[in-house]
């Protein structure tokens, strides 16, 4: 009984820390302005929307990977999946959950767009280096 109680409590704190960790990753890139090119290609104007995430991820898969953003993207991807599941399962019980989850998914989309921006810049740098050689 005690073990079950500790298990449930620690799962709750694990979830809380995981959400905060993902939010801190997203908060760190929220000040990064998107380039005009990424805005055009993703269709994101001033703010991202929840529906942008999948499209941005598809674009990300077309770019060469950067080691630095891989784990961050994986964590945010898991977070996005949890949000999708929570929206589908509980939004009819708690209507405010829908708008909260949509806001969070929009933040995930912006984070992915910043990663896309960095990958494009990184690819450009690599090409420039190759040209110099």
């Amino acid at each position, binding site marked *: 009984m005690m*073990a*079950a109680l*500790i*298990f449930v*409590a*620690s*799962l709750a*704190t*694990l979830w*809380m*820390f*995981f*959400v*905060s*960790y993902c*939010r*801190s*990753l*997203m*908060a*760190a890139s*929220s*000040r990064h302005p998107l380039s005009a090119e990424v805005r055009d290609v993703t269709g994101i104007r001033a703010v991202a929307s929840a529906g942008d995430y999948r499209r941005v991820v598809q674009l990300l898969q077309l770019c060469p990977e950067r080691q*630095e953003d891989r*784990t*961050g993207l994986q964590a945010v991807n898991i977070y996005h999946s949890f949000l999708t599941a929570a929206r589908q399962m509980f939004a009819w019980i708690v209507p405010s959950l829908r708008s*909260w989850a949509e*806001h969070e998914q929009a*933040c995930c989309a912006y984070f992915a767009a910043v990663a896309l921006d960095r990958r494009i810049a990184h690819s450009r740098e690599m090409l420039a280096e190759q040209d110099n050689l």
Partner: protein
Amino acid sequence: MPGPVDLTIWFLGTAFELLFVVCSVARKSFLRYFFLNLYLLSSTTVSIGRFLILWSCGQGSDKYMYFYYYSDALLTLTLFCALISLYSRVFGELRAGEYVKWGAVFLLLGTAGFSYAVVAQSAERLSTSFAYELSQNLYFVGLVLTYILWGAVLKLRETRTQLVQIILSLGLYFSGYAASYALVNFSGKFIIIRYICPALGCFLPLSWSLTMLRYTEESRLVPAHLVAVPR
């Protein structure tokens, strides 16, 4: 002798611990996060020591068992010091360093006293049981302290990205550890559970290293974005 999966996790964990130390030296943050480095360096030393004893005496030997439990208690104490050093950094601007120090000593003595009181009831192998009990209780205290520290970070609107992510990684580590301990207690027969604790041991230094690699001491984040419900 542990299997190939155990050994892989073990070596990876040790490599990540060294990676963090290298990263913090490269970022010129070794002294800034001295206790974190001390913990990971101690952990690396203990890992090498454990491996040598395991190699020469075997997993079932008394020597390995004693070394394992005593070094574990020592590592938990060092991790506790690392956590307190994070408290000092968060509360540094409030000049509450003295209070934090005394609070930590009081908490440590209290936990040691409680552990002794629990162990004193059983007569056999008092010192080993005490080391084990102290280690477990300090992990629980660590989880609670990290939770409180996170509350303080939100309240004080902390903006230092490195510090925030180091604290969050520690929170994830402690919560994961507590969950896996509880899981072992009621369903220890599943083999996968055996790998969760060592894998978590890899997660903490890896996550800290990534934080060091990604962000500089000057990196800042928007504190309002950290709270789950926008204010």
